[in-house]
């Protein structure tokens, strides 16, 4: 018999949220695909359609698990990715107490000082790459590096399969940028934790 805690560990419930048009839904789909097709695990994907997709808050719900998923809706996410302030306001209350919050640091300003979060200037980085719409792929790379909810190779494969023909290379580059940023962030945290913030010790 599997106890509830094991179950909990192996299943990750994820909500991605942002404005309509940011590619939130696509990011959710890639994430689910990476888990199912790349990592050979179970995954579900729910997209919220409606007036949101015309510029309001929009969200995608993804569950990744080793076991069969009986119910695809996410009420309390383990991982919450916010690319808009409205999305943040709407979902932050539902996050599990030990949930991981990932935000675009230029678009979301967390209210609570106590809440730990990982931030990345995804939209700014996408603009620097010349394509603002790749912010979602950068965020996906960041998510992969920070949470390891899917494997790196599976996520890369899913990205190159899902993006339009001819943009594969630049999207993989964007994904890697996000991933590098996430790894640098984790390294920085680890260093800070042992008191090494600078180069001169």
């Amino acid at each position: 018999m599997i106890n509830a805690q094991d179950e909990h560990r192996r299943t990750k419930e994820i909500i991605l949220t942002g404005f309509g048009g940011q590619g939130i839904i696509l990011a959710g789909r890639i994430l689910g695909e990476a888990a199912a097709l790349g990592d050979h695990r179970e995954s579900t994907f729910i997209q919220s359609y409606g007036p949101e997709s015309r510029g309001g808050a929009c969200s995608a719900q993804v569950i990744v698990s080793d076991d069969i998923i009986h119910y695809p809706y996410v009420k309390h996410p383990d991982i919450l990715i916010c690319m808009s302030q409205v999305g943040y306001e709407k979902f932050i209350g539902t996050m599990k107490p030990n949930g991981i919050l990932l935000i675009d640091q230029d678009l979301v300003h967390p209210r609570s000082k106590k809440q730990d979060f990982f931030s990345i200037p995804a939209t700014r980085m996408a603009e620097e790459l010349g394509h603002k719409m790749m912010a979602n792929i950068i965020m996906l790379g960041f998510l992969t590096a920070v949470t390891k909810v899917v494997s790196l190779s599976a996520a890369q494969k899913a990205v190159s399969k899902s993006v339009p023909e001819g943009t594969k290379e630049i999207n993989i580059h964007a994904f890697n940028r996000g991933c590098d940023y996430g790894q640098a962030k984790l390294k920085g945290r680890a260093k800070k934790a042992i008191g090494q913030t600078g180069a001169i010790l």
Partner: protein
Amino acid sequence: MNNFNIILFACNWGPHTAFQTLQDNGAEIPPEVKMVRIPCTGRISKALLFKAFEMGADGVVLAGCRPGACRYGSGTDIAEKNTEDTREILELLDLKKERLRFATFFPDDSDALLKFLNDFCNEIRLLGPSPVVATRKSDLKNSNKKQGLNKKEVAEVISIHDIYACQDCGKCTSACPLALMGKPFSPRMIASSIIAGDIDSPSVKENIWACLTCGLCYDRCPSAVNFPEFIRDIRRLLRKSHLEGHETHGGFFQSLMRTLTSPKLKTKHWEWLPADIRWDPQSKVLFFGGCAPYFDIFFRNHLGVQTSNALSDSLRLLNFFDIKPAILQDERCCGHDLLWSGDQENFLKLAKLNVSAIHRRGIEEVITTCPECYRTLKHDYARYGVEINFKVTHIYELLEREIDKGAVGFKKIDKKLTFQDSCRLSRLEQQADWPRNLISRLKPDQFREMQDSGSAAICCGNCAWTGCDSFSKALQVKRLRQAHDTESDILVTSCPKCQIHLRCAMEDPFLGEELNITMMDLTSIIAKTICWE
């Protein structure tokens, strides 16, 4: 009789008198001692002391007058400092400082002198023969022949660099920093004189050694005549016919580099490294430091530069990004200065020794911070037939790559900065953007370029320890005035030599105060301010 070579430099006034007494009395002076009478120990420079070792001495004694008894006042003091500096350099080379001693004697101290010489010779016998291969011996033998310049070889150099393409337009001379300082020096004149077969004329011979090889003329030349490389090869030919170059500092650094070509010499290049720096002998990434540790010892009493900081701070930055590189404990000079001062033979020896040491360790990537090492390892080794199978990366490239990944920030610097380009990186390698991209990430009060910057920047006044003169000094003064015109507090540098040469101008007794400005290597500024966000 044994095979040891011990040189006794004996001051004419005290020790030489004592030595003569020993000879008069038929005392048994150890046979390996060769005495050289000198006017005063204060005139025996570090270069002369070291040259004895380069030429195969196993031990050297500098014998002077007792403190206060120096006929010229300051000789003993100076000799003591010179000996101490040279001893430390011997120690860094693992030649052992015990091989060089300074001792003082009164004229009637003959017994003390004999005892000293016997003790010293015993000590040297215990240390064993010097591992240095006397590189100059063969040179000295050949020099008797005094062969002239081989005309065919000169023609070859002219054709390799296509000097005939020179249109005699004069752009080079109008850009040349030496010519702009008023020196009667003209690249195009040198080129046309050599083409005309006038290589032996005194003005050409002198000017060949004055060229800074800074590359500004090549940058401006409409026919792309690579004048610096042409000069380099002509220097090689002149050197072959044994015409001495105009080496600065008495040729100390060339001596040092030639000494480093001895395969048996195992240096202690990194012994000074601070304890906080982590390195890993198994790593496939190697950090190649360069000669800064020698410079710092050589110049400590005069300029007080600390160019090794660039090395330790580069290593700290690698550590910051969790890179623990390998280091060559017995690292040798890359050979840049020998190559550019015409000694290709010994340059090749160094290149082969370095490359085989790096290959032996299975190194895949070499990281350098010195622009000269970078240029030499990356391009000149292969060009002169020493193939390398590793990648050469400048620390700026690596830092840019790592910092660009993100999550790294910089603390504010409440200072104003300006930047001195290195000729090797900014012009010969055309990478003036590398340091600038990094500087643009820093948070200083202000960053302002000097009037001449990037690929048009003015040289620090000297290259390859060759041909320094009053025009070099004037050039440095001009450069430092440009730095002051930016109203900056710190002159950021990227080459240890820029620091040494510009510091030299600041030592000027009349202008020093006016020219003084803090200098700091870019890697040190980054290391001081970088932090995880």
